[in-house]
């Protein structure tokens, strides 16, 4: 403890841990990110080429040609691809990237491998607000659906997630600092409360409302329309940029909050930023897609297994891998039982868990 030297801020900008000799079997930062981009690109190609509606490769080229020239092509393939499939792909990338990176931020902040964005109440708050809107919306807020239209559920869920996160953040403040242990417990307590609220709502709900709520809780990219997709895309992009600046301070926090402070990191500011970035990214994603479980938990671990714990790799890497996971799951969701669609939240686990377990076995020596 006492041996930790006080470093200047300048050294921090290169990361708390200097890049030492490469660890055997670990990918370097560059090859990890290149691999991530390659995976993302191939899952985008596969996702673009598959779907319930048969669109051949040559038709797809034609669609892209028409898109490139900016002229609307009125063929059915163009309409299906541009209005339905393409916004889904973009939303899938945004959702996966936001969830993956937020997972890394939370695990880094809590210094706990079990942390995920759900811990600070975004998902449960959004779910509770969505439940209130679905079940009680008609008589609680009769004016809202008329003024906000199809944005009612989205804005309610985003607001709910954000408010609950603020509440948990507020509960964990003590004497001017944020206590992570307090935040963890407050998060668990508030999540349980939100779960009880959802349980109560499910008793009040009619059969149709119950089914709607159930599907919302399982997540889907089916609600993708350009207006919402672009909004989520912009929010996630900003969150990604902001999140990446936290890589070096999070590396310092990995040594312990006291050490990070000694290294010149404003720990309070990092916490505030990480929570804000997570709340915006995950809040926006969850509000449009419903709850997509597991991506935020699994993507960071995956990258760490391959490339080591440096947040400068894990943050962008988990964003890439999150996007790949969501795209892969959604491609299966769209095609496996076509013309019926499967809930996405089911598939992220069905696809992600076996791959992750294989990964764990392969790298078990490294844990």
């Amino acid at each position, binding site marked *: 403890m006492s041996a930790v030297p006080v470093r200047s801020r300048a050294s921090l900008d290169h990361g708390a841990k200097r890049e030492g000799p490469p660890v055997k079997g670990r990918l370097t930062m560059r090859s990890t990110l290149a691999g991530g981009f390659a995976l993302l690109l191939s899952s985008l190609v596969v996702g673009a080429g598959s*779907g*319930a*509606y*048969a669109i051949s490769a040559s038709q797809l080229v034609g669609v892209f040609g028409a898109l490139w020239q900016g002229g*609307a092509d*009125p*063929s*059915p393939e163009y*309409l*299906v691809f541009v*209005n*339905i*499939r393409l916004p889904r792909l973009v939303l899938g990338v945004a959702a996966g990237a936001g969830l993956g990176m937020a997972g890394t931020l939370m695990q880094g902040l809590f210094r706990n491998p079990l942390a995920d964005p759900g811990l600070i109440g975004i998902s449960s708050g959004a779910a509770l607000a969505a439940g209130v809107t679905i079940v009680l919306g008609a008589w609680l807020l009769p004016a809202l659906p008329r003024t906000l239209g*199809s944005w009612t559920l989205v804005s309610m869920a985003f607001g709910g997630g954000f408010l609950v996160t603020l509440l948990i953040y507020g509960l964990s403040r003590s004497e001017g600092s944020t206590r992570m242990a307090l935040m963890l417990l407050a998060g668990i307590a508030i999540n349980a409360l939100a779960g009880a609220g959802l349980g109560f709502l499910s*008793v009040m*709900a*009619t*059969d*149709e409302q119950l*089914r*709607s709520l159930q*599907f919302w809780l399982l997540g*889907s990219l*089916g*609600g*993708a*329309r350009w207006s919402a997709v672009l909004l989520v895309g912009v929010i996630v992009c900003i969150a990604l940029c902001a999140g990446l600046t936290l890589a070096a301070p999070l590396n310092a926090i990995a040594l312990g909050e006291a050490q990070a402070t000694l290294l010149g990191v404003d720990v309070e500011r990092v916490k505030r930023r990480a929570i804000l970035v997570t709340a915006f990214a995950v809040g926006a994603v969850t509000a449009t897609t419903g709850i997509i479980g597991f991506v935020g938990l699994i993507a960071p671990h995956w990258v760490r297994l391959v490339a080591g714990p440096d947040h400068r790799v894990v943050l962008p890497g988990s964003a890439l891998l999150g996007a790949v996971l969501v795209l892969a799951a959604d491609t299966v969701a*769209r095609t496996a039982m*076509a*013309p*019926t*669609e499967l*809930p996405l939240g089911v598939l992220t686990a069905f696809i992600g868990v076996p791959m992750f377990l294989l990964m764990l076995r392969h790298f078990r020596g490294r844990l």
Partner: protein
Amino acid sequence: MMRTMQGRREALRLLGGGALAAGAWPVLAQGTRAPRLVTISGAITEVVYALGAESQLVGTDTTSLYPEAARRTAKVGYMRQLSAEGLLSLKPDAVIATTEAGPPVVLDQLRTAGVVLELVQADHGWGEVQRKVAAVGRAAARESQARALAARLDGEWAQVKKQVAADTGRKPRVLFVLSHSASPQVSGEKTAAHAMLGLAGGMNCLAGFQGYRPMTAEAMASAAPDVILTTTQSIEALGGIEKFWQRPELALTPAFKRRALVTQDALLLLGFGPRLPFAVGELHKSLRAA
């Protein structure tokens, strides 16, 4: 299979050339080809079969289980969770659903793709059946047949209403129990079962709440039903009539003492489709006999 799909798409493009130029797709001039239909509601699917338009039916939802042939159509999933691309892959000209169908974004995407959407308001009355018949008639381009079917059904309905009205005895207090899954639910106001009981000359013994609630022993005792109504599917799910009467919640009801039980198929009882006159007539007779 693949070849016919391909051929169909080619044909569609040739036929639809004019309409496509106008930016709408795949709206085809009526009469060039019988419109392809997707139905999202068991009762609406029944109307399609009643009109003899099943050759035009290319997809149905998970609640379309009657007639037997409807089970073998392509399934587009649950009505609240439709998939735009999945629906469009069936290349329908029209989708007929109730106003419960969703999500709204998917409905918008279908409209953008030029699919005609017929949404029927469900209010658990005779008007609902008439609207379903008219909507299917319009969408299937079989309006004269639809008018004939509506007239025939109106006649049947008048008969049934006369049958129920002629009965001036005390209205039996009826409890409707639905138990398709784990825990039995009982119906309050604003449910299809509540409306059916009213139409068939019975009286829902539960009032003061809307929708379905879990069945509890004390509430059932105080509701004091003379007759229990349930679906044949509920009896099957519970493992037979013996098992049904073993439910502890029912033990303190007058119906239990007389073992007064009426069962009807769930789709027939709650569907509000073209079989409504038959369903109400049968229910009235059974309630009398119970």
